[in-house]
């Protein structure tokens, strides 16, 4: 009697326990599904502006402003993408922009790795001081340095050339990038470099053969960030570049926007085209992005 009661109690307990796990799992499933739906809706909203430009770039000027607006073009006018070079010279602007950003990415990344390695691994006098100057400069607005730098470049006669836009990237590619590389290097076990040192490798050798291969995600993140920065720097491009044959993508678009306000389909086609290079570069490096930043332990 007593035993059966005990058994029954045990059974009930088990059932209760199981059902509570089940209901918990069900709740979890509902929560996951809700999150997913919310994310899908938000993602659609975030992408809507982009779709709107692509849609408009494929319509004729009348259809663009039709009310109520159409979400999908009736005819897909890819011919809008054939823009006369006199109004928007895509290939010239792309070439010019790449002439600026490719050297910036290369020099900026290489020098950021050099400095990041120095801060992350080597011992030297004044390290804390120099490093805090470096971190502190992340807070300094670059806008304040524009006038003095303009004066320097202008006195060297470098206005209307690409040099003022490229040369600053020979200097570590920005404090944030140096910091990112340094943080990443610190997550790599020191034993690796020590093994290399025992094998007779110097510091530079250790950097190129041990450190660089192991911080590849951080290197990719840094090069992407430099690419985006140079691509977006409309203000400095406006200040330094004046002749049309030196125009970058951003300057070309601004000029198009200012002078051909009636050729809407052409302008949207040009805008859509200018989205491409960044998106392509991003797709290549995207899987490293969050990993690259997570591993640096942004915590501190």
């Amino acid at each position, binding site marked *: 009697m007593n035993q059966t009661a005990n058994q029954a109690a045990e059974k009930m307990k088990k059932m209760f326990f199981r059902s509570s796990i089940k209901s918990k799992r069900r709740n979890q499933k509902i929560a996951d599904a809700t999150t997913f739906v919310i994310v899908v809706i938000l993602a659609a909203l975030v992408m809507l502006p982009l779709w709107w*430009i692509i849609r408009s770039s494929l319509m004729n000027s009348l259809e663009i402003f039709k009310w109520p607006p159409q979400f999908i073009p009736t005819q897909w006018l890819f011919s809008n993408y054939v823009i006369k070079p006199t109004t928007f010279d895509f290939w010239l602007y792309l070439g010019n922009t790449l002439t600026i950003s490719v050297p910036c990415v290369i020099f900026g990344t290489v020098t950021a790795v050099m400095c990041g390695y120095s801060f992350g691994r080597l011992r030297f006098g004044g390290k804390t001081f120099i490093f805090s100057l470096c971190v502190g400069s992340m807070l300094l607005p670059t*806008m304040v*340095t524009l006038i003095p730098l303009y004066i320097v470049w202008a006195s060297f006669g470098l206005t209307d050339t690409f040099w003022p836009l490229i040369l600053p990237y020979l200097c570590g590619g920005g404090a944030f990038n140096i910091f990112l590389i340094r943080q990443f290097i610190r997550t790599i076990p020191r034993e690796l470099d020590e093994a290399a040192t025992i094998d007779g490798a110097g510091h530079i050798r250790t950097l190129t053969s041990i450190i660089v291969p192991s911080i590849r995600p951080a290197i990719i993140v840094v090069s992407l960030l430099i690419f985006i920065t140079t691509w977006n720097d409309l203000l400095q491009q406006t200040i330094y570049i004046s002749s049309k044959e030196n125009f970058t993508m951003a300057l070309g678009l601004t000029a198009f926007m200012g002078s051909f306000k009636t050729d809407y389909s052409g302008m949207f086609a040009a*805008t859509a085209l200018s989205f491409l290079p960044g998106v392509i570069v991003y797709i290549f490096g995207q899987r490293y992005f969050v990993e690259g930043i997570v591993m640096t332990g942004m915590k501190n």
Partner: protein
Amino acid sequence: MKSRRKRSIIAKKEQRTAYLLLIPAFLGLSFITYLPILAVFGISLTDLNVGHFIQGGTLPPVNFIGLDNFVHIFESPSVDFLNSITVTVVFSLIAVAGSIVYSMIIALLLNRKMPARGFFRAIFYIPYILPATAVMISWWFLFRYDGGLLNYILVSLGLGKSYFLSSADTAIPSLALIAVWTSGNLIVIFMAGLQNVPRVYHEAAEIDGANAWQRFWNVTIPCMTPIIFYNLLMSLVVNLQVVVPALAVTKGGPGKSTMFMTYLMYQIGFRGRQLGQAGAIAFVFFIVAAILAGILFATSKKWIFNEAGDDKK
């Protein structure tokens, strides 16, 4: 004795390598960052003009004119510097608050398990990597009064149309909305931070019977405060320097409602050629930014949570 000398030689060699590798940083920190910031004050005390750099120019030599530039920018109604300060600060506060809340929500959502997470992460990040000029042109079109998508949505929801960028009252909030849309970089940093929140804390709280909401407020948020602080600071520095919307689309208008400080500096310094006055604007900008960052730092001690026993590196 001998080994100590050898060790010191090795240390010296290490130090020499370190300094060699740091040459770019030395150059950058001195010539591109700190010296120009010092120089800007000097420039603001002169009547330096773009004309001084044009060969064969006929301008008289540069004069030291004391604080005249500062007096001028604050008193001249055509410069209307106080308006620029207000406009810039208001824009930054709205944009920073919006971006932080938005990117935190997205990061929390994306931190959960879901199918195609990488794909969604890319979607929310993409606005950040698009060329800023192209982004401005796209939104200018979305914001149009006649035929603009946003007004269509407003009308469909039964609300009235808005002038967005073409009215002085709505231009700043509209531009702040674009800034929020492009804050994908903050999402990445928040996500990185969320993945570093120790799981043990969540488990402990769950055992103590805390529900999801309580765990969010008492575990996630406190652990995230250092990252929130970092994002606030970086987002503030970036948004205070806002200039692309004015350069690409609004040209400071309507009226002077989007005459941001950086755009004003550009106008005065390069359109109007008055580099001295532009230097004065830059210097005041520096002070304003320093005050705002200072307020943030001063309050940070109160709300940043330090994990007890957090090992110092």
